[in-house]
């Protein structure tokens, strides 16, 4: 099944241009909706720096923060200045006793939950993109070398990748983050672990492309002209094998975001006080009986981001599928 999928992707991506994808998505309302959500989530992650500092602060730090930032906060009309006293466990604004100074309420340390959610988008989406890119680069390297040289090298690489795939990804990442960090897990280790797990998938896709591109005449010509292998792979084969894996990697970001959220939730990714959505859920779960709101917002944020990415990704895939495209 997996191979037919690869072939499908291969065949399809040759015929489609970016313009066709855009045209398709404009017509497909759900894909368009997904694109809008994705765009909104990304812009929030990139531009919304409002009170981002507030999100990471704890009790003691707050006074220093207030002193250093009173002016900038007053100058910034976007949000009401934060109250000078920290009020833990405020309910959201629309509930009784809620206040619009904290639209989503505050957490156990009195930190503004809305700021933390906003800042969390930067971490989740950023980490998702970085981890996917790392996995993509590693996968391309392995896949290109294996596909170009073939034979034993290819066999060994592909066997290795297959074996890695048969161990549940989460297990590999947790083991990696825990043991490499010597018992002090951190989001950086989680990113590298994530890349290790995703690389085999990318490697398979790029390899199948390289296998067909390798046989083309211009590659033979380059070889006959005495171009070095490294340059052939780098200059001639990779640029022509890139499209399907690039599309797949955009679809993969949503998977990576989910996985990293799960890791942080279990305590092997981002650590408190980093306002990561998964890590926030980890803390919120222990307060679920008394303050159920705290578990709601990070989960909803993950849900909307992933939904947007999935709808958008489905749209791209449909646009590339010749059966549907016509």
């Amino acid at each position, binding site marked *: *099944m997996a191979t037919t999928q690869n072939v499908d992707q291969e065949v399809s991506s040759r015929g489609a241009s970016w313009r066709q994808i855009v045209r398709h998505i404009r017509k497909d309302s759900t894909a368009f909706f997904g694109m809008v959500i994705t765009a909104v989530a990304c812009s929030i992650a990139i531009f919304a720096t409002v009170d981002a500092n507030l999100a990471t602060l704890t009790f003691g730090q707050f006074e220093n923060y207030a002193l250093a930032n009173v002016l900038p906060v007053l100058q910034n009309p976007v949000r009401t200045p934060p109250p000078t006293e920290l009020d833990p466990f405020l309910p959201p604004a629309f509930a009784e006793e809620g206040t619009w100074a904290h639209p989503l309420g505050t957490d156990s340390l009195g930190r503004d939950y809305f700021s933390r959610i906003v800042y969390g988008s930067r971490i989740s989406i950023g980490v998702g993109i970085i981890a996917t890119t790392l996995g993509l680069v590693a996968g391309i390297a392995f896949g290109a070398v294996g596909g170009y040289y073939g034979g034993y090298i290819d066999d060994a690489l592909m066997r290795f990748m*297959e074996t890695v795939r*048969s*161990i549940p*990804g989460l297990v590999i990442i947790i083991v990696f983050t825990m043991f490499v960090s*010597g018992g002090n897990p951190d989001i950086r280790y989680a990113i590298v672990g994530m890349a290790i797990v995703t690389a085999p998938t990318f490697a398979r896709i790029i390899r199948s492309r390289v296998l067909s591109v390798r046989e083309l005449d211009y590659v033979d010509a380059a070889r006959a002209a005495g171009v070095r292998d490294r340059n052939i792979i780098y200059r001639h084969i990779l640029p022509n094998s890139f499209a399907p894996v690039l599309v797949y990697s955009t679809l993969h970001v949503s998977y990576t975001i989910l996985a990293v959220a799960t890791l942080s939730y279990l305590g092997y990714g981002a650590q408190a006080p980093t306002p990561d959505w998964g890590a926030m859920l980890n803390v919120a779960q222990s307060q679920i009986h008394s303050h159920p709101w705290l578990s*709601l917002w990070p*989960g909803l944020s993950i*849900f909307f981001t992933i939904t947007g990415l*999935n709808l958008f990704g489905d749209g791209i895939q449909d646009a590339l599928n010749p059966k549907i495209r016509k």
Partner: protein
Amino acid sequence: MLRYTLKRVFQAGFTLLGITFITFLLMELMPGDPISVIVQNQDVSQEVIANLRAKYGLDRPLHERYLSYLGGLLQGDLGYSFRRQAPVVEVIKPRLAPTLLLVLSSFTFALVTSIPLGVLAGAKRNELPDHVSRLVSLVGISTPEFWVAIMAVLLFSVHFNVLPASSLVYPWRSPDFYGYQSQIQLYVETVRHLLLPVLALGTAQMATLMRVERSSMVETLQEEYVQLARVYGIPERRILRKHAFRPAQLPIITLVGLNLSSALAGAVVIEQIFQINGMGTLFLDAVQSLDYQLVMGITVILATIFVLGVIVTDLAYAYVDPRISYGGES
């Protein structure tokens, strides 16, 4: 069929060998070793450490240790956990059944819900059932398992207080163990305790299966032989039941095998949330205490379960679609 079976089992043997090698290598590459972790915060002389290493054979070269590890594996010995002062096999054994119960129940739930919904959606493409099923699968795919679990607990245990939110009741124990009156009550309680974890773990599985079931059904219904059946005037309902249903299940079979990997990973999370004493919680404990041997043992076991699952689904596929095994023999 027999030859195909043997071939697949043989291939699986190779994969398993590779898995043991990679886990062994992975643990080898990690900074420190079991002894250094144990004596981490204690004032122990280098001599004692060297003695300990020699005692457990950690001073021997890499390939020798790997071969002796392999030899142990063949005799069902997964090594010795220094942390727990017990053989790894003994630690893992009681943890297997809860995880299998959880994972298999989730698959049952996912299959029972996704197949009818997927078939209905595929048969009534672009009508109401289709839209509903697409929405359900989109929500299922986009929601993290652990959040489904948290929300389910919030709704059914905290708010309505109708379902228990922690641990499982095992049907193979006697009713007296839990203080139940009868065997029937034991089974009822088993199901009640399983509901929330299965819902959390099974939703994502259901969503992916349903998507594939739908598209497979749509594709099958466009096949020429189905068109021909329509031309003959065979009622749509009969076409669905007699002609289209069975071939449309092929991708599902493969997917169930491949999904086993994500289900096992999901079980790690779900067991932690519901405090189930399975492989998942054991794994997190082992990682938390940097228990090298135990982590290796669990990884090998989980990968073995996955590889076996894939073989079973491959064979089921070959059984349903004879072309596969003939192709394998030629």
